[in-house]
């Protein structure tokens, strides 16, 4: 077990290293951030001074080496735009993104599993068909367009909820929640459809298997067959997908945050890409990549808890 975790961590470091090198090199090629940063009327001398101050006059390999050395001592470089440590800027925005991702996940799991279970158990009923039609719609609706529609309907037309921003109140108070509601619903829609479809497919496949027939033949009550035997077995793929989707929710928050002007990491990284704020982009990627790998690891470890048949030795990377 510990050998497995250690090997995974070593792999994590390798992935982080490769990502940082690729992105660092790639962004180096894109353009000169100084052109964007200095005031357009600045003369050559001032531009050179800025270039030197940011350390951009050195060869790219040396810049990367300085970055790597800094990273190992916890310094991820200074944001060109904010003039503050890049990691500090990102960590500041992280709670807002996590808030949104968490709320979206709660919405999609709490609605998705019951709806999918129902659609799977009574696949030919009208309600099940309606649920499935709804889910394929949710699957097909482009997230950003739904966001615009939500703003149009609930903020502009009805005026029930604020269209953009975050507010200052915490999430558990209505004044805070009302800001988070539209973006969270927007972010949840795709995951909700995914969870409904996955749950239904699993229920339909599993309920044909022998162990379910056997459990029913034993005369177990329906609630126990579904609640214990079935649910336990469909949980395995569901946990995987939910876990992995948590990562993708954080990534997709980029879009939602841009539309709703939600002050999270996603909006920060989009702005940083346009402003060629390399340290922030690289630091954001390192943070998210690390988060994904951590999530994947936790999901793999959860496997063994949920399904003793899976041995970690069998799970390759």
């Amino acid at each position, binding site marked *: 077990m510990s050998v497995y975790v250690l090997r995974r961590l070593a792999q994590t470091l390798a*992935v982080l290293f490769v990502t940082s090198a690729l992105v660092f090199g790639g962004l180096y090629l894109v353009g000169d951030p100084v052109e964007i940063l200095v005031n357009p009327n600045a003369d050559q001398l001032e531009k050179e001074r800025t270039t030197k101050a940011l350390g951009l006059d050195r060869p790219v390999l040396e810049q990367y080496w300085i970055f790597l050395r800094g990273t190992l001592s916890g310094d991820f470089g200074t944001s060109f735009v904010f003039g503050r440590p890049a990691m500090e800027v990102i960590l500041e925005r992280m709670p807002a993104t996590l808030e949104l991702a968490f709320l979206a996940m709660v919405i999609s799991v709490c609605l998705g599993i019951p709806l999918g279970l129902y659609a799977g158990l009574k696949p030919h009923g009208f309600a099940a068909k309606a649920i499935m039609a709804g889910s394929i719609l949710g699957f097909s609706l*482009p997230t*950003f367009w739904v966001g*615009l529609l939500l703003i149009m309907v609930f903020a*502009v037309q009805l005026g029930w909820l604020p269209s953009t921003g975050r507010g200052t109140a915490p999430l558990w108070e209505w004044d805070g929640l009302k800001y988070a509601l539209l973006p969270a619903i927007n972010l949840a829609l795709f995951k909700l459809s995914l969870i409904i479809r996955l749950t239904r497919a699993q229920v339909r*496949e599993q309920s044909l298997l022998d162990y379910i027939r056997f459990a029913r033949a034993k005369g177990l009550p329906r609630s126990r067959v579904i609640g214990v035997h079935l649910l336990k077995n469909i949980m395995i793929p569901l946990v995987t997908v939910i876990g992995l989707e948590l990562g993708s929710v954080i990534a997709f928050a980029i879009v939602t945050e841009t539309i709703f002007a939600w002050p999270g990491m996603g909006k920060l990284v*989009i702005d940083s890409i346009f402003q060629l704020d390399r340290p922030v982009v690289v630091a954001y*990627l390192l943070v998210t990549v690390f988060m994904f790998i951590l999530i994947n690891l936790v999901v793999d470890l959860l496997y063994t808890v949920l399904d003793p048949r899976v041995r970690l030795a069998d799970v390759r990377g």
Partner: protein
Amino acid sequence: MSAVEALELPRPETPFRRFLSEFFASKIATLGFALLASVVAIALLAPLIAPQNPYDLARLDLLDARLAPGEDSLSGKTYVLGTDGQGRDMLSAIFYGMRVSLYVGVASGVIALTLGALVGVLAAFVGGRFEQLVMRVVDIQLGFPAILVALILLAVLGKGVDKIIIALVCVQWAYYARTARSAALVERGKEYMEAARGLGLPAWRIVLRHLLPNAMPPLIVVGTVQVAHAIALEATLSFLGLGLPPTEPSLGLLIANGYEYLLSGKYWISMYPGIALLLMILSINLVGDQLRDVLNPRLARA
């Protein structure tokens, strides 16, 4: 020898017929197919059926800007779906946008399918370290959300149709590679493969003529889903300002252009391209859904 002869016999036409009748047994799938066919037709025929060439800046009239759907303009023209900020006819812009979106989605899908299937089948056949390496890369890449990978690639590559196709291929090949490998592993153990090997056929022929046709169904299912994803992803990236240049407006870019007018109640500039995008993705998903049900033997037996 009899197994070999059975292989060489012309196959009866029933499988394809059966596939067709099973596919069109569902009304929703038939509707989806009809919708998809019209979307493709519109995209292909856009230059012929669009009322205006939206790329021809000389034909745009700024006086006609931001007209509501159906409103008469000063020059006496009526725009069915209104006009955008530059006086461009939305209906024509949507037709051309569908063309761009569909082209990007299908092109990236076909390239990714070819590349991914090749790598996946190779991995299954060569095995050993090569297979391990490929699958490790696939696993790692699929661990990251597509949008993040595409975003980074485009931040580096810049704007353009070719660039967004490259980014989408890089994102998608892994799905095909994984599917192709697992299909190849299943098919490899079957008798017809043994027969083909027993005949002493060259490896490339076994792979191309015997293995690939049989590994196709799962790849087709993944393919339809992925093309829908690619179209949505391209629209999203263009909306964020990272995909296509403004000279070739895809549906995502049209929606982005209407964003600023949305809050002042000029809904149509964003709304109608969005509906077009939705219909496009929906029709592909409906067809893909039915394909999966028809081609999945596990459900067919139930």
